[in-house]
């Protein structure tokens, strides 16, 4: 009797210790992710984004699904620039969002093995690096009209014409220019190429001289090319050492300016990780990719504002001293009729006048010239000299010739 009691107690003890007690975990049942822990890693391509997403759940499978859902959520609603920007879009997207959460696989290009696994308060937290097809997600949202408000903006203005201009023509800056151009072209921008042989045209040179002030060769170049926005780039490379091996780290600085006004619209610096490479241009590429993604995002913001408030144009009128005052008044008046915003006179002499005007619903200088002609009530006829991008030059004289010679 005693023996059997001892044995019973012994085995009960063993069983209790062996089996232990499982912590309870209640599975998450909602349509949205349980975890919203997502951080950017990089933009690995023009339509792809890599994030580090953490999922939560009672099992690894649940946590993995939750991480994918969190990554999708991040693209749609999280981060600095979500696809769904306002409450109305979010409301409209509830159904499709739920579908995406339930089956995130079509939008995921790569999911790494587990990068981190911990248990907190009985729940598993598992992190993955996930590459998302942001292009496809955007397309999905656009195809069902959730982000329809963007259409009008696109219709009104189209995409800006961009010029990428290196601050100095060295090897690394040239690589940066090439990568930027490739990046922008991938995103369907019209990109104006500036090479070492590109020259500022004489008209711009002359007008620039007439306007006075510090000469800005890049601005002049942008005006010559006829871009809406020009991007100035510079790149440098710092070398270092790791484990006795030579390493390098690239840094790239990019600024974007409105060509018409010279106003800074975007500025960023980006760095590559410190690496050991045989071709250092690889680092420039990596850093530029980072910078390009950032700066394009800022340009977009400005461009959207322009669509709402008016696109800036630089208008230069060539006349002579006798007609000048009347022409100036008439052009100014015409511009006032086209824009509610104040017209900025950047240069005004007796025979040549320059203005900056923000005009809605007119996409380019060619159309602007037509509109000015319609509203012009001054002496003589208007004769177009140049209409590149946001820069319009025309002649206006009642009698006689203009006083500036144009070759």
């Amino acid at each position, binding site marked *: 009797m005693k023996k059997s009691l001892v044995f019973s107690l012994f085995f009960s003890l063993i069983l209790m210790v062996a089996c232990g007690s499982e912590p309870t975990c209640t599975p998450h049942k909602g349509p949205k992710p349980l975890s919203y822990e997502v951080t950017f890693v990089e933009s690995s391509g023009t339509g792809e984004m890599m994030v580090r997403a953490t999922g939560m759940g009672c099992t690894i499978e649940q946590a993995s699904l939750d991480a994918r859902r969190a990554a999708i959520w991040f693209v749609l609603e999280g981060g600095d620039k979500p696809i769904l920007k306002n409450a109305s879009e979010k409301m409209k997207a509830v159904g499709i969002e739920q579908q995406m959460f339930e089956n995130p696989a079509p939008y995921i290009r790569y999911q790494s093995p587990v990068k981190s696994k911990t248990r907190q308060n009985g729940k598993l937290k598992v992190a993955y690096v996930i590459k998302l097809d942001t292009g496809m997600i955007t397309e999905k949202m656009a195809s069902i009209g959730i982000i329809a408000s963007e259409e009008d903006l696109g219709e009104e203005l189209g995409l800006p014409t961009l010029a990428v201009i290196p601050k100095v023509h060295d090897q690394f800056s040239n690589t940066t220019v090439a990568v930027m151009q490739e990046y922008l072209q991938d995103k369907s921008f019209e990109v104006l190429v500036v090479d070492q042989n590109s020259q500022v045209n004489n008209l711009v040179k002359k007008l620039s001289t007439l306007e006075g002030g510090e000469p800005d060769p890049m601005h002049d170049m942008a005006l010559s090319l006829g871009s809406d926005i020009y991007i100035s780039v510079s790149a440098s490379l710092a070398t270092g050492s790791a484990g006795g091996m030579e390493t390098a780290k690239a840094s790239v600085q990019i600024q974007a300016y409105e060509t018409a006004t010279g106003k800074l619209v975007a500025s960023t610096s980006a760095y*590559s990780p410190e*690496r050991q490479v045989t071709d250092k241009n690889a680092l420039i590429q990596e850093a530029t990719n980072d910078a390009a993604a950032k700066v394009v995002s800022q340009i*977009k913001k400005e461009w959207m504002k322009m669509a709402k408030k008016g696109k800036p144009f630089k208008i230069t009128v060539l006349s002579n001293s006798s007609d000048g005052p009347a022409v100036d008044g008439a052009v100014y008046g015409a511009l006032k009729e086209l824009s509610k915003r104040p017209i900025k006179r950047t240069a005004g002499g007796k025979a040549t006048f320059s203005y900056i005007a923000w005009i809605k619903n007119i996409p380019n200088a060619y159309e602007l010239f037509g509109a000015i002609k319609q509203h012009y009530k001054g002496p003589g006829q208007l004769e177009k000299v140049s209409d590149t991008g946001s820069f319009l030059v025309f002649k206006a004289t009642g009698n006689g010739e203009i006083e500036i010679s144009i070759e």
Partner: protein
Amino acid sequence: MHRLFSLVLLLAFFPLTALSDAKQVASDDTQKRYERKVVLGFQEIAFEQNNLDVPIKFCKRRKEGTTCSWWNIRVNFPLDETQRLKAGKTFYDWTITSRFDKVLVESGKMTLYTRKSVQESPLGSFPVFRPGIVSNIEFRANLEQYLNTEVALMFKKLMMDASKQRYKELPEKEQATFITTKAKELGMSANVIRKLMNSAFVFAAHVDRINASGTLTQYYTKTLDGRSIPQWEIKFDIPMAVSLYIYRFDPEKDQFVLYKVWQAFSGAGTGAFDTRTMTFLPNAAQVTEAFKETYQTALKAAAINANYKMKEDDNFAIFVPITGFDHRRITVPVGIAEDIRVDHPFTVREKVDGKWKVKGYARARDVGKNCMDDTVETRMQLVKGRAEQADLLREYPWTGLFFQLGLGSNTLSLSGKSGWKDYGDMFAAPALDLAAALDLGYAANSKALSEFYISFYAGGSFAINSITNYGQPLNYFGGLGFDKRFYVGAGGFFIGIGGRVGYMGGVSVTADDDYSLSYGTISLTPRMQLGWSFTPSFELIVNAGWNLAFLVHGTIEQPSTADIDTTDAYETFTHGLNAGITFSFHLPIVGAMSKMYSKPSKECDALKKNNAQKQEKGE
């Protein structure tokens, strides 16, 4: 059209940022994976002595007992070059295993064998390090001087040359990032370079002063025709301590810096399996042979202890996350390239609320041959606790050897014939049972022998009931046991089926010491075990078996008259209970049991050499 236009616009402007820190795509410590280290090793190990002066004890074993005296001969054993080279090979085979990339310094060149490739660097006329016969202090000074002159620079160059290949062989690399997909350039980050360049070590061993001793025993055995003939048995015990100096390469200073010094021990009784028995007094050559054999056994035992200590260090231990888990079956991407042996235990870990928690234990069952193919995995069995995918496994330092302390009952009852009373006890005979048990699966690194334990046991018991005229019999026993274990569930439970073969004898003495009765049997004990493995280092086992014994002799000894042979007075076949509870403690020092260990797998080394030869031939 509107939608398309809008889409183009949106795609063009989609907000993105990019990678500025490669760490973001790396795993944290919860998913740590062993990264191969480079180890520079030498052919030879250093010795404190160039010869050993070994005192020999001479013993005579007689019926009345054994008497010993120190022999007036002290044997001097010179350690010849062959012996020293063999010692170096044995020690480094066990310490610089296939989990390391190896650097070999040969005349004129330094060669690095990575997991899949071979890289060479010229060494000029710099000599190969010969550690020689030196004290510990001198050895260290000589070694540092050697390493921190030209070798360091050559070593660094070799490491640099090999870094890209080693990066390719890392278990975790940057994947799917811009640099790897668009730039088409390997572009190791500085963090990775630092990791690779800081993962180089030197292992150099020094055999410390040895106090060996020998025993020459003379005894008599009976031949089949009843004659007594003398036998001589020579055996040595060479308890050995080896200092293993580990230096780490500092690539910023171009220097090797002392990382750790481990003392590895062989343990005592190293010559237990190297005993030589002869029918004549052994000559000098035979004694030397016995000594050399034991010397290598002791060195191997110390090497196994060093291997055990290495696994205690997080730098050298294998860490790997579980990639597959299905009903107690675990798969992990490690294998013989990481020197994983059959039955190798691992702890299952998980970080819970910021603290590491051991969830269970797993053992390797089918070790993957992953020398050249990273995708080959090892299958393991969860033997205790819980596990799931992505839990972290950490190698458990283990030798597979246990000391077992058993308490229980070991009985035999002889049935007397024609008036002789029964002798012995069937049930109540408290026993103390001591054993050394070794997992042959681990020791032999054999899947066929997985969880197959061999044990060497000895013990004694005495009958509580005084049921003979000769008082309470005292039994003694010893022999060899075999048990095959089967783990059941994940509670650490196992069932063992096996048995013991040995000698079981007994003696009892009358109250007035006038007579004593003794007997001897050859016994076979089939038995079952029900065990619980608390950890790979401690087990509790309940044994139950039945002794099946065959009487080989029975004797009544009287002080003043000739002994009486009572062998025929009892039934030849006898039996009794063998049951008890055993506490099993893991032993990191293996002593003479080192004889039973097979070398770490050389399969990967062979493949590498083969590949290198092919490269040389330009195939």
